[in-house]
């Protein structure tokens, strides 16, 4: 008998992922064992518990990871950078469960699967941000992507939902394949899969201008661009955001963006420090295209969900500036920005989900008329989220943009700041047109939407929106403690 030598597994580092996986499994079991009319409640409670437990575990992991180190045969990075991103993902997941709860009559048939997939996607995301190896990166990326493909199409009774699922799958699969081929080229050039060792091999063997490595890096950036929905790899975003059930869109827009950008920063900084002249320029170019395209396309949208999809593309552009800066301030800016951005994005889509249910159709800008007066909490929140997206003070969006721009200045790229400022100015137009639709219209202009009786009671949805509002405004006032957390996390990357 030959004793197999297995790597030592640091279970604590994997705990958030395992908690979410357990929740996913329990929700799935619940779907089978519990009578159908209870399945929704059971699934929702398990998913919420999973996200809550994973949130606490990530917080403990953050506190405990003062020293960054690689665990489980160096495949997983156990550091604060990953833990902070996991906190954002788990928070987004918890709020997404709250937003989904009111979809009850619509997802009843697949309730157990819905929550199981939500928790599974969360687990994949928590795994991805800790990836320290190209294999783990690809597997985790596909893990949460496949869950999201199904979630987008979960309302199989709607053509739009199916179409969104198929489009996401095809474009997402294309992006993953590009990422995989890029990984293969990087492996071929350096002979290594671990991020840190790729950097070492590049330095030791002088591969700085190896065409194989450069082509591989370019394809890895392309693949990550697809996942982060950065232009010109964004074409799936408006359709998928529009067609997927709105609570799923809310979760995707916040969590997918978080993990894709956090991972992009980790892999570029840790694995390709010698090629930084190439990738900082590439990322800066993608950021500019995203800012331009996202903002200009958002200007002409009448459907609010599509408008927010383009707005999310432009926000990918802002956050890519932080990555392109390639300094510690950029890491701090990215991690901080993701906190209010996730809250605003989740909250805005949650308000849209509520309005959609009231009207029974997609929400156009005109359909927001009167929402500010009819449902004061939702109206006020949407107002604040829009101001936050635009980066006005009293919301965390302001400090997010401020930090991103300071990172670009520190790098010496003032031109990137100018592009960002112009993009912000353009974005004001469409963000404020939502506020105008909410409040500033004359009686003659407003066609009140008769929704049949008083609005439905959606306690959990309102609580989730209130929480998003609290985070959006709170992150403005708590900027110091939050940037301290982000700074401690960014310090652990080898800038």
């Amino acid at each position, binding site marked *: 008998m030959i004793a197999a030598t297995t790597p030592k597994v640091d279970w604590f580092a994997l705990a958030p992922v395992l908690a979410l996986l357990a929740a996913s499994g329990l929700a799935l079991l619940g779907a089978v064992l519990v009578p159908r009319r209870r399945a929704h409640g059971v699934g929702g409670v398990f998913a919420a518990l999973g996200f809550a437990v994973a949130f606490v575990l990530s917080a403990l992991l953050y506190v405990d990871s003062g020293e960054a180190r690689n665990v489980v045969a160096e495949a997983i990075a156990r550091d604060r950078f990953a833990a902070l991103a996991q906190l954002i993902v788990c928070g987004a997941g918890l709020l997404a469960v709250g937003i989904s709860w009111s979809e009850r009559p619509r997802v009843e048939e697949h309730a157990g699967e819905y929550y199981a997939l939500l928790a599974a996607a969360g687990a994949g995301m928590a795994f991805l941000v800790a990836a320290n190896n190209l294999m783990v990166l690809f597997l985790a990326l596909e893990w949460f992507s*496949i869950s999201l493909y199904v979630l987008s199409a979960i309302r199989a009774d709607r053509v739009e939902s199916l179409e969104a699922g*198929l489009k996401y*799958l*095809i474009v997402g699969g294309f992006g993953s394949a*590009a990422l995989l081929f890029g*990984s293969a080229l990087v492996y*071929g050039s350096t002979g290594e899969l671990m991020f840190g060792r790729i950097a070492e091999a590049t330095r030791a063997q002088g591969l700085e201008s190896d065409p194989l490595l450069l082509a591989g890096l370019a394809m890895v950036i392309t693949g990550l661009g697809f996942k982060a929905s950065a232009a010109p790899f964004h074409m799936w975003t*408006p*359709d998928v955001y529009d067609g997927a059930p709105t609570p799923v869109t809310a979760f995707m827009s916040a969590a997918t963006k978080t993990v894709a950008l956090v991972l992009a920063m980790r892999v570029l900084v840790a694995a390709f420090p010698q090629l930084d002249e190439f990738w900082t320029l590439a990322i800066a170019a993608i950021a500019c295209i995203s800012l331009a395209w996202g903002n200009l396309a958002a200007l002409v949208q009448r459907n609010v969900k599509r408008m927010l999809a383009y707005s999310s593309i432009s926000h990918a552009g802002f956050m890519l500036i932080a990555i392109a800066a390639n300094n510690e301030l950029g890491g701090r800016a990215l991690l901080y920005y993701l906190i209010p951005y996730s809250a605003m994005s989740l909250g805005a889509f949650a308000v849209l989900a509520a309005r959609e249910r009231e009207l029974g159709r997609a929400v156009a800008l005109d359909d927001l008329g009167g929402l500010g007066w009819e449902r004061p909490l939702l109206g006020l929140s949407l107002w604040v989220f829009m101001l936050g997206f635009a980066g006005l003070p009293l919301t965390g969006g302001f400090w997010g943009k401020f930090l991103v721009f300071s990172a670009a200045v520190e790098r010496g790229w003032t031109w990137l700041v100018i592009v960002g400022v112009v993009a912000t100015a353009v974005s004001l137009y469409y963000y404020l047109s939502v506020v105008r639709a909410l409040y500033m219209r004359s009686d003659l202009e407003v066609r009140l939407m008769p929704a049949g009786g008083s609005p439905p009671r959606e306690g959990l949805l309102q609580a989730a929106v209130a929480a998003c509002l609290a985070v959006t405004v709170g992150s403005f006032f708590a900027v110091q403690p939050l940037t301290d957390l982000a700074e401690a996390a960014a310090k652990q990357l080898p800038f």
Partner: protein
Amino acid sequence: MRGPDVTWYLAVAGTLFATGALGVLLRRSPLIVLLSIEIMLNGANLALIAFARAHGQEDGQIFALAVMAVAASEVVVGLGLIVAMARRRLDLDVDKLTALRG
């Protein structure tokens, strides 16, 4: 016995990947598009295995095995979606999927 140089394997892998990419961009049946994505993944697999042999390691081969599992699950989801669309008698043509636009 020594086989051909790793460059040849890389050339075949690149051709496979490009074939798949063209298929995704040009073909209109979602089934063929799914197939093309598989060809892209398998091109990458071939490159991984060839490089693993060239470097004399197992990492790339393990990676390729894992990719096969992933590719299978992706196809399962894709076929499931296509069956759901066929049941609703939707046209199986990606150019006619235009319920979402703007």
